[in-house]
Structure formats: C-alpha cells, structure tokens
C-alpha cells in the first residue's frame, strides 16, 4: 500500500483513516487479520449490492429498450409505495431462497452441491487483486494479473461438475458446449492482456495502473486504450470477456432455444441463484480487470478532475462497462456453436497474436519523435486494420446482404 501522502484530499484518505481508527489499537498479528477481514467484508457488501442492483438494471434497461417500463411494482415489505421497483432484487432473493431446492435422485449429491459453491468461490477470489482505488488494493501481489486469470480458469471446473453431476443428457451436452466455449475464449482473453504486461513491464496490477499515469498535451491521458494496440487489445478483451461470462452473443450454454437451461437444468432454488450470482460476479470482475489494464484503473481522465476520489472513478468506469454489457445483450442474437469456436480460433487468436507483435513494435519504437511518431502510429494502425479486414472478409465469406429481384408483372 503506497504511503498515504497527507496532502491528498480528505475523501481519498477516508477509507484508510476509517479502517485505522477501527483497528488501530489491536496488536500486530490480529490487526492484519481484522484488516483483511474488513476488506473481504467490504468487497462482499459493495459488490453484493452491485450484483443485486445490476440484475434490476438489466431488466429495466432491457425493458426500456423494448418500449416497456420493466419491473416497477415490487413494494418494500411494510411500506406500500412502489418506487421504480427498487425492491425487486430483494424480492428475487427471497423468492430464490423460498423456492424448493430439487436434487435429482440419480444426481451425484456431493458434486451437485459443490458446483455452485466452487463457481462462486472462484468468481469472488478474483476480486483480490483489482485496484479499486489509490490505496484500495485488497492484496498487493507481484503477479496479480496472473493470479486473476488463474482463478478465472478454475471456473471451468465448476461448470463441468454442474453438467456432470446432474446426470441429465441435456446438461451433460450443454456442459461440454460450455467448456468448449470457455476454453476456446480463454486464449484470446489471455493474449489480449499480454501486450499490456509487455508495455507496462510488470504483472502487478498497481504498477500497471501507475504506468498509465500522466497526460499528453495536458488532456489526453496515457491510458493504454488510446494507443492503437491498446484499443485492439481492449476490444478483443471485452469480446472474450463476454464469452467467458456467457453473455449475449455467446450465451449458448443457456440457450433456451436448444437445450432448455443448459447445465443449469437440474438446479433450482438458491443454487440456481448462486449460479447467476457467480455469472454476474465474473462479469464485474472481468470488467474491473479491463478497467485496470486498459482504462487506467482508478485514474481520473482529466487533470483538473483529480479532486474526485479515485474509487469514484473506478466505480464510474465499472458502471459504464456493465451498461455496455447489458446494451449488447439487448441487441445481439446468438452465435451457433461452430461459428462461436471458429470466431475464437480463426479470428480472435490470430488478431491477438498480431496485436502482441504490434505492442512489441510500439514499445521498441517508443523513443521515436516528430515525423517518426506519425510513421509509428501509421504502421501500428496498419498492423491492426489490415489483418482485421482481411480476416473479416475471410470469416464472412458466404455471408452478405442480398439484392432481390421482382417477378415480371
């Protein structure tokens, strides 16, 4: 935790001061324990309510896009006013708690119970390394980014356990599909952040954020998303994150039009809600990491906006990304299984590899100035747009809008 300079605005130091006030008097080993417990408690509380209101936001935005108001009728328990359905997530929570939890007789009882627990556990431990604010990093790890994606990779295990334990033909098939999708999008996800580590020179999340400090010409922040390879990496990262959290164009495993509810068919009650909690936590974690890697973490976009506390900036960017996820869900149809994997292997992975080369070129030529700077940008852009257009044409070979003829009347 970098030392808290006294000159920082009060709001910036507030979380630390609050925590030290609470645990200042404890002897050393206990203070560390209580501090980490407080950190865990805060993360669970903040992102738990964010999850609750994210489900509500999703349904209301989806509604508004479809010209209908979305849920606005759930009253608070004892007061009769129904303001904008803000009590909807609590109602959903109570509903999922009171629903009967049916476990099929032939199911593998242990695995059936363990799957949602493991899935949620791994989704939550990924929050340990995301820097939420200038001094708000739960755990300071040297290989923070690798930790994040190691924990993310273990969720596949839980999906397999869910599909296998339900002893149901549909859910096993769907578990296989889900695994194929998760594995084939793991590669572009990892390849998307390797250039950031290459340029930032460190695997630690806090160092990556500090590497994106400062502004060029006074207003353009040094965020990686404003470099050509950074923007391409950001887009690949977001697309792969969509696939990793089973969101819209890639929500094949839960495709109602094919295999009922995929690997969730045999789950009901609170376990079913746990799966969705895990999916939303995964989505929040992935967009948190996207912010850290590409959008300058908790940095303010403009110098004179520095007085707003850093965690507020992180929150704002997180909300914008999550709304983008919901917006994409409201618009796009679903890809078929073979198109999904072909898109990953034949389009995203090559682009990510080329982007890696592009980032290497960018960091090698960082000392170019003046006219060379323009050439540097031009080469970098060509290295992105060229393969994108060529491979895009090959990917959508037989697919184009058609012109129709009319019968000779």
């Amino acid at each position, binding site marked *: 935790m970098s030392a808290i300079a006294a000159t920082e605005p009060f709001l910036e130091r507030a979380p630390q001061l609050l925590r030290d006030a609470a645990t200042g008097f404890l002897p050393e080993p206990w203070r560390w324990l209580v501090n980490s417990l407080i950190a865990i408690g805060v993360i669970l509380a903040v992102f738990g309510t964010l999850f609750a209101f994210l489900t509500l936001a999703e349904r209301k935005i989806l509604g508004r896009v479809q010209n209908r108001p979305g849920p606005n009728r759930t009253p608070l328990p004892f007061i009769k006013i129904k303001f904008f359905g803000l009590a909807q997530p609590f109602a959903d929570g109570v509903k999922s708690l009171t629903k009967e939890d049916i476990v099929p007789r032939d199911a*593998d009882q242990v695995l059936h119970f363990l799957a949602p627990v493991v899935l949620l556990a791994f989704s939550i431990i990924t929050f340990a390394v995301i820097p939420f604010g200038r001094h708000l990093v739960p755990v300071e790890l*040297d*290989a923070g980014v690798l930790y994040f994606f190691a924990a993310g*990779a273990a969720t*596949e295990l839980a999906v397999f356990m869910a599909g296998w334990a339900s002893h149901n033909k549909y859910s096993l098939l769907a578990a296989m599909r889900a695994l194929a999708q998760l594995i084939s999008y793991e590669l572009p996800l990892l390849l998307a952040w390797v250039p950031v580590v290459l340029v930032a020179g460190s695997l630690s999340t806090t160092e990556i954020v500090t590497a994106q400090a400062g502004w060029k010409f006074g207003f353009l922040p040094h965020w990686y998303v404003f470099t050509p390879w950074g923007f391409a990496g950001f887009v690949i990262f977001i697309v792969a994150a969509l696939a990793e959290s089973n969101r819209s164009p890639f929500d094949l495993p839960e495709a109602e039009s094919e295999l009922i509810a995929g690997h969730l068919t045999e789950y009901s009650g609170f376990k079913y809600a746990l799966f969705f909690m895990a999916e939303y936590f995964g989505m929040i974690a992935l967009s948190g990491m996207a912010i850290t890697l590409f959008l300058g973490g908790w940095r303010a976009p403009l110098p004179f906006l520095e007085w707003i506390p850093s965690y507020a900036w992180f929150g704002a960017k997180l909300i914008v990304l999550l709304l983008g996820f919901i917006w994409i869900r409201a618009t796009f149809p679903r890809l078929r299984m073979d198109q999904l994997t072909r898109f990953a292997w034949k389009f995203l992975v090559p682009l990510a590899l080329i982007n890696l080369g592009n980032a290497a070129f960018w960091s090698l030529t960082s000392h170019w100035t003046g006219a060379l700077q323009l050439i540097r940008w031009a080469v970098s852009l060509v290295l992105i747009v060229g393969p994108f257009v060529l491979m895009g044409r090959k990917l959508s070979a037989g697919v184009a809008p058609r012109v129709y003829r009319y019968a000779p009347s």
Partner: protein
Amino acid sequence: MNAALAFIAVLTLASAAVAMALRNLIHSALLLIASWFGLAAFYLWAGAEFVAFAQVLVYVGAISMVVLFAVLLTRRSRQDLAVEPASLGRALSALLVGATVAVVLARAIFATPLAVAPTATPTISVRQLGAQLMGPHAAALLVVGVILTVALLGAVVLAATDRADSKENAP
C-alpha cells in the same frame, strides 16, 4: 508457520491417496485436481507467487479439462475395469519397481547439501524469472513447447482415427 506447511502437506497427500482408491473415475480425477491445488499452495507458502499462479492456471485450468475429457471419452473406461485376482508375480514386480524408485529418490535427496538453518528465501521478482527463462533456460523452454504441441497434434490425430473406426462398427 510449519503448522500451515503440515496442514497443506496432509491435504495434498490425503487427496492424492483417496484419488487412487476411488471407484468412480470422475471423483478421483477431481481429487487429483485438489492435490494440484495443494501443490500450488506449497509454492505460495514458499513465496514463489508466479510459479503458484502458473501452476493453478496451467494445471487446474487446462490439464484438469484434458484429464476429465479423456476420462469421459475413452472407450476403455466404459467397461468395468476387470481387476485380475492379485497374483504373486504382480505383487513382486510392484515391489521391485517401488524399491528402485525409492532408491533413486533417496540418493538424490541425500546428495544435495540441505542448508540446515532456514535462510531468508530470496524474493525473485517476475522480471528476473523472465530473464532467467529467456536467458540460460531458453532451450529447455522451447523443447517443452515443442513437446506440448506434438502431444496436442497426437491427441487430435488419435481422436480423428478413434472417430473413424467407431464409424465402421457403429450399428
């Protein structure tokens, strides 16, 4: 601190042992994965974060999937494994193999000069690790890469032929 070490050691060994004993292949595969987690915990305890997370990412992320897919798709695991009665010959050969492995390991352990006093473990940063990997050990890295690719291609070819011959004798 060695209480934590003991706990992790017991956990890893127990899950590996139970994995061998179980009838249901999927359960044993999952327990094997639990023991890999134990291994990663060892690395963490030793302070090598990068290796621990690499272990989790590679083993628990990918190799566990390969194991589970293999268990599901190989034909042999479908019939109940006919365990022949325990004959004397098999027991003797098992003992022999066990003994040779034990001897080799023991020689290696005693030959290396173990520093008795626990010196402060040198905290190697990821950057130095990278430099080491790309420097003196670059050849080893490339060889491992080649082996993995060959294994991958072999698996694909096997799966293809597996599918081909299953077409002929399928009903």
